């Protein structure tokens, strides 16, 4: 598995992938800056009212950036995994590493590392930009950087990353199911950004238990913006989210292990 992990890292160290990671960081920083501007230009908004609280910084980051990070994470993983079929490179990999589960596990570990490091940097740099921008707008950041404020920030930070791991595992499952880059990206985005929203609209009680909602709720324990706080409570949210993640791993593993590779 270590070999598969290192092999995948070799691919991820390419200019295009690193440029994509840098773009994600820049976009997150830009979104937190725009969120701050939005709040200051409309002082009666919920966002503006939340700014002077301990959760001000988190709310700036979660108002737009969380959805962006979810979309990017699911695209990166789904596209990367499905491309092995679309490009035909999977057969090269399986000849060198016939242990299919080891290959998938090593590959996913590298991808999860890439997604979480990129997201962590995006959140930290976005937070830095938000702090600097807030100070330049004359907004007090004392509560944001207080002990309670930082504790809330790191709780949010950890939960966003955990949610992104879940979304990435969903991306893996969609890639293994579709075995096509275009289909994997399309279905992933449609499901994450629209699909569950539709389920939620027609079946709100059930929709909240669907995976992207559950992953999105996780940071909501510290931030009411974006997906909001988990209606079922954090513990239930966490447990069911972990069950979904385990399910994605098991189903992907079984399909990847036993399906013919004819691409």
């Amino acid at each position, binding site marked *: 598995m270590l*070999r*598969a992990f*290192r*092999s995948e890292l*070799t*691919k991820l160290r*390419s*200019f*295009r992938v690193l440029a994509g990671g840098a773009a994600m960081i820049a976009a997150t920083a830009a979104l937190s800056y725009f969120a701050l501007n939005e709040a200051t230009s409309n002082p009666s908004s919920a966002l503006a009212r939340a700014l002077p609280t301990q959760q001000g910084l988190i709310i700036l980051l979660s108002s737009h950036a969380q959805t962006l990070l979810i979309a990017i994470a699911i695209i990166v993983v789904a596209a990367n995994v499905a491309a092995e079929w679309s*490009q*035909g*490179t999977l*057969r*090269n*990999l*399986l*000849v*060198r*590493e*016939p*242990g299919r589960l080891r*290959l998938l596990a090593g590959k996913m570990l590298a991808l999860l590392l890439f997604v979480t490091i990129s997201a962590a940097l995006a959140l930290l740099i976005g937070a830095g930009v938000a702090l600097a921008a807030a100070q330049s707008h004359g907004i007090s950041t004392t509560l944001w950087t207080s002990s309670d404020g930082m504790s809330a920030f790191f709780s949010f930070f950890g939960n966003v990353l955990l949610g992104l791991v879940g979304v990435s595992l969903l991306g893996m499952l969609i890639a293994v199911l579709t075995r096509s880059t275009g289909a994997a990206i399309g279905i992933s985005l449609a499901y994450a950004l629209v699909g569950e929203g539709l389920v939620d609209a027609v079946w709100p009680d059930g929709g909240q238990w669907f995976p992207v909602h559950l992953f999105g709720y996780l940071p909501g324990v510290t931030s009411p913006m974006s997906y909001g706080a988990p209606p079922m409570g954090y513990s239930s949210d966490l447990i069911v989210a972990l069950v979904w993640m385990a399910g994605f791993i098991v189903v992907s593993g079984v399909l990847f292990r*036993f399906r*013919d*590779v*004819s691409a």
Partner: protein
Amino acid sequence: MTLHAETSQTSQASSRSSGNSLAIETHGLSKHFGQRKAVDGLTISVPGGAITGFVGPNGAGKTTTIRMLLGLIRPSSGSATVLGQTISHPRAYLPRVGALIESPAFYPSLSGRKNLEVLAQLGGHSRSRISQVLEIVGLSDRGSDLVGKYSLGMKQRLGLAMALLPDPDLLVLDEPANGLDPLGIIEMRDLLRSLREQGKTIFISSHWLGELEQVAGWLVMLNQGKAVFNGPARDLVDGRGELIVTAEEATQIELVARIAIAAGYVVTPENGSLRITCPIDWAEELNRRAREAGATGIAIRAREASLEESFLAMLKGDH
């Protein structure tokens, strides 16, 4: 004819084959995709240490067989071993196998060297091996270029470099000459011979029968998922060919034509001569019958069939 040069390879292969050192062996191997039988009860044996040509028309089941041997797809029934290990445990033999399957596949946004590095990391091969294989396939000076900018021939060379990475005992090559220019084909042929001299087994699927004829000592021929020939390449072409009969008098030609047709052979008149498609050792019998019939002024010349002609004759069921 070039196959004569491969006789020693064939006899070595035959002795290895009988000495139970088969590189590949299948028994009733089948793969069905729904109702379609891509491979149907295939039983073949490929000797170690030889170059084996794996030939057949499009859709004969060559690539499906190769994929089963490499553990990429599961057989519907039957069994097979590669390097003495059952194909249900590819981990036991794939580290000793190098493969180029169909058109080579790469990460286009990575350089040739990086593409090799991805596989070298995965297979646990050293970085120095990457430089070695780039040198072997003549891509040392283009290794840093993005694969997306490679020509078809360069991609084929890089695919071969990938197959050579593990310094394999068995090299499985699916259409390796695709996209190569004439010089590249000659280099590929020399490389295959040099690898064989190192004791490696090469299993090569190709439509280029003329090329295979020059290197392959053993042949496996597939048609509609079944093996129609499996043995020394010499055996396939041995005795197969045509007799060219010339005579000063047209009546004698007509007489010979009647004798050949009566014996069940195809006769083609050509510029006052006759081409008789038959085993070339029938020349003696033809000569005797022609003399008995009064055609004494004829000349018979034998022309041995090429691999391609033998292949086509075999496919037509002309054994």
